[in-house]
């Protein structure tokens, strides 16, 4: 198992290198630069700025400089947020996104799994229709619609919760964004759990389990649940990576200082170092979470073993 994990980590290196290289050159290919804005800088000013950030060098050399710095763990200074380095920005923003994301995913699992199971067990009943109908609505309504509605109703009209802000992660500030962030995930997880549960319940070994006289409860808990969770677990890997690296929409609407906004803003500002920093960071997270998912797989499914 350890060997497997080690191998996978080794394989991750070329993957990340490809990600870095592609994003680096794509970014430099994009028209417009970090100093293009509403007002043109005098040529000599722009020249000074470009020199300060090594942008006056050929792109391939910039790439080598970047790789060299990266190896030393240096993401470089942000072009836009000049008082911070990219590492500092990620170090400040990620814990916030992580905390928010973990709560959202926890809420999504806590609600989505039972709902999906209940719906599967009462297949084609009114309970099933109710759950799946709601889930469909949850999938269909984007969170940039849900979030302002939540803020308006609970923040402005009822004044129960703050409309925005983070306030060092006070729970009152967290409720609305966590709910807004998790609604879609609840819906996905419920639908996925239901589908895979129904499939598992139709298999031979469940029929065998029932035939040998196990109680329905035991059939579900001991034999159906684990395999039914497999697709959900594989979905959770990328979902967690996506959700804990922050949601641009939710962070913008609720004014949360996470790193989600950097993905979009840095790209729009042509903040090259910040774009690369977030891409590399996201890449590493995806690789790690996928690995964790695969390890969990072997725990859930006895047919999967990694001791090669």
């Amino acid at each position, binding site marked *: 198992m350890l060997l497997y994990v080690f191998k996978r980590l080794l394989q991750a290196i070329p993957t990340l290198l490809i990600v870095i290289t592609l994003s680096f050159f794509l970014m430099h290919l*994009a*028209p*417009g*630069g*970090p*100093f*293009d*804005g*509403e*007002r*043109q*800088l*005098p*040529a*000599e*000013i722009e020249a*000074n*700025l470009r*020199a*300060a950030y090594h942008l006056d060098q050929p792109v391939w050399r910039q790439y080598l400089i970047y790789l060299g710095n990266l190896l030393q763990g240096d993401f470089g200074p942000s072009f*836009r*947020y*000049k*008082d*911070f380095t990219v590492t*500092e920005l990620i*170090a*400040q*923003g990620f*814990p*916030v996104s*992580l*905390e928010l994301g*973990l*709560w959202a995913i926890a809420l999504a699992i806590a609600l989505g799994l039972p709902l999906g199971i209940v719906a599967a067990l009462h297949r084609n009943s009114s309970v099933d229709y109710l759950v799946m109908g709601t889930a469909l609505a949850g999938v269909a309504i984007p969170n940039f619609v849900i979030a*302002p509605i939540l*803020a*308006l109703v609970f*923040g*402005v009209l009822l*004044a129960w919760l*703050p*409309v*925005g*802000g*983070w306030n*060092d*992660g006070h*729970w009152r500030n*967290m*409720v609305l964004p966590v709910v807004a962030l998790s609604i879609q995930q609840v819906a996905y997880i419920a639908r996925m759990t239901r589908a895979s549960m129904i499939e598992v319940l139709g298999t031979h070994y469940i029929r065998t389990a029932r035939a040998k006289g196990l109680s329905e409860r035991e059939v579900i808990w001991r034999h159906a649940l684990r395999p039914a969770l497999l697709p959900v677990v594989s979905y959770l890997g990328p979902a967690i990576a996506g959700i804990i690296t922050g949601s641009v929409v939710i962070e*913008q*609407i609720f*004014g949360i*200082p*996470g790193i989600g*906004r950097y993905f979009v803003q840095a790209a*729009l*500002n*042509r903040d090259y170092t910040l774009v690369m920093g977030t891409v590399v960071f996201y890449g590493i997270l995806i690789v790690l979470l996928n690995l964790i998912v695969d390890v969990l797989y072997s725990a859930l499914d006895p047919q999967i073993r990694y001791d090669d």
Partner: protein
Amino acid sequence: MMSKLRFPLSLPVLTLTASLTALPLQADTLRIAIMGEPASLDPHKISGTWENDVVGDLFEGLITEAADGERIPGVAESWEISEDGTVYTFQLRQDARWSDGEPVTAEDFVFAFRRILTPATAADYAYLLYPVQNAEAIYTGEAEPETLGIEALDDHTLQITLERSTPYFLDQLSHYTAYPVPRHVVEEHGDRWSRPGSMVSNGPFKLQRWQSQTRIEAIRNEHFHDADNVALDQVIYFPIEERNTALNRFRAGEIDVAREFPTQQYRWLRDNLPDATHTAPFLGIYYYVLNSREGHPTADPRVRKALSLAVRREVITEQILGTGEEPAYSFVPPGVSHYEPAMVPFVDMSQEERLERARELMSEAGYGPDNPLQLRLRYNTSEDHRQVAIAIGAMWEPLGVEVDLFNSEIAVHYADLRQGDFDVGRAGWIGDYNDAQNFLSLLESGVANNYGAYSNEEFDALMREAAETQDLDRRGEIMAEAERLALEDSATLPIFYYVSRNLVNPALQGWENNIEDIHRSRWVSFEE
């Protein structure tokens, strides 16, 4: 029930603070929603209005702004200007102090001016100081910073020598590019001096805490020379890019001042929060650049004139925007000091007459129903820009003009304008300082921001003449003459003058609308 919810995963949020303990919210705390996260709090590294909102509360220049935007003495107590307008001698206040108690000296200004112009500082706004002798040469690396025309005659006497007389120079000294920086702190901490914990400033407030993307807290600076008249104990700036979020937080009472509320909400706000909704004329113009480069149909002045004639500006301001913007018939917005803007020649014509004239001009230029004019109109992505572009395209239809709309994000948009790859392009200009020259210089030959490459020798000559004229009113007349030339040429197509849009807690006193939309917190207080 809710209060029992616990969030055990309370990872401490890393913040750049001297002390992590937030002050309890005091009674006299002003909470401002600014437009975005400041790039820096170092006055030499910023260029945005939202940064000005914060940095302008932390620092004070030789000259500063009153509540109504008028220029008043800041660190400078008095000054003398030489006959030829090139040498300024300032007497600094004896009681001007940095927030650490050290005196603010003439040497701090010398240090600051040299620093912002040093190429290695890479200050993107340094060119505002180009009127100072040798400034441009220093910035381009052709001269040493020590040769800059600024000198400390003694601790409290500062002399600034200009390249040539610059009538608006005093106004410029209130700009953040001309703030002093604390030499003793910058030399100790280097580029990281402007972060919480090390930052020292000389304005009415001092930096307490900066939590990136969330809030910036400043408290009253006891060492400020006018601290006794500063009513607020604390100011918190919330960077909020999403305008609707700022609006919601204002409605929920979480903030006192929201900068630039969303235009779409104007009617609702006016009806429901009339006391809080402020709109006022603003020193900015929204215009279309008409490409005068060879090979573009808009190089023909007749085409430019026809296009300008056919735009019904009132329809755009009233029916499309509806936020109190004024239709623009001049390039320099009204309200600029010592200046009466020239107007486009057709301002008194009726809409029918304008359209009639526009048709004539188009057929003279060889366009008509049989030979429609194809135009490429570029704008940067935004709902308002799109609607304006569509409306204007429709207004040009009767002239037989077919418009292709292109939109792109802002960085690409301006890069395209610079390369001249357009016929008509959207642009906007907000005055850096309250002077007509700041607008009209956009039309001078060879100037970087002259996107349409308009070039008129007569215009350039008038601008040069104005630059050498001491008398402010006479100078204004010359520039107005230049503007008249440009408008007769339809060098650009002015559409509307911007307005400032703020939501202000009605319980605030001392918050005044002004044409530059500059509001320093030192003048603000809460009603008793």
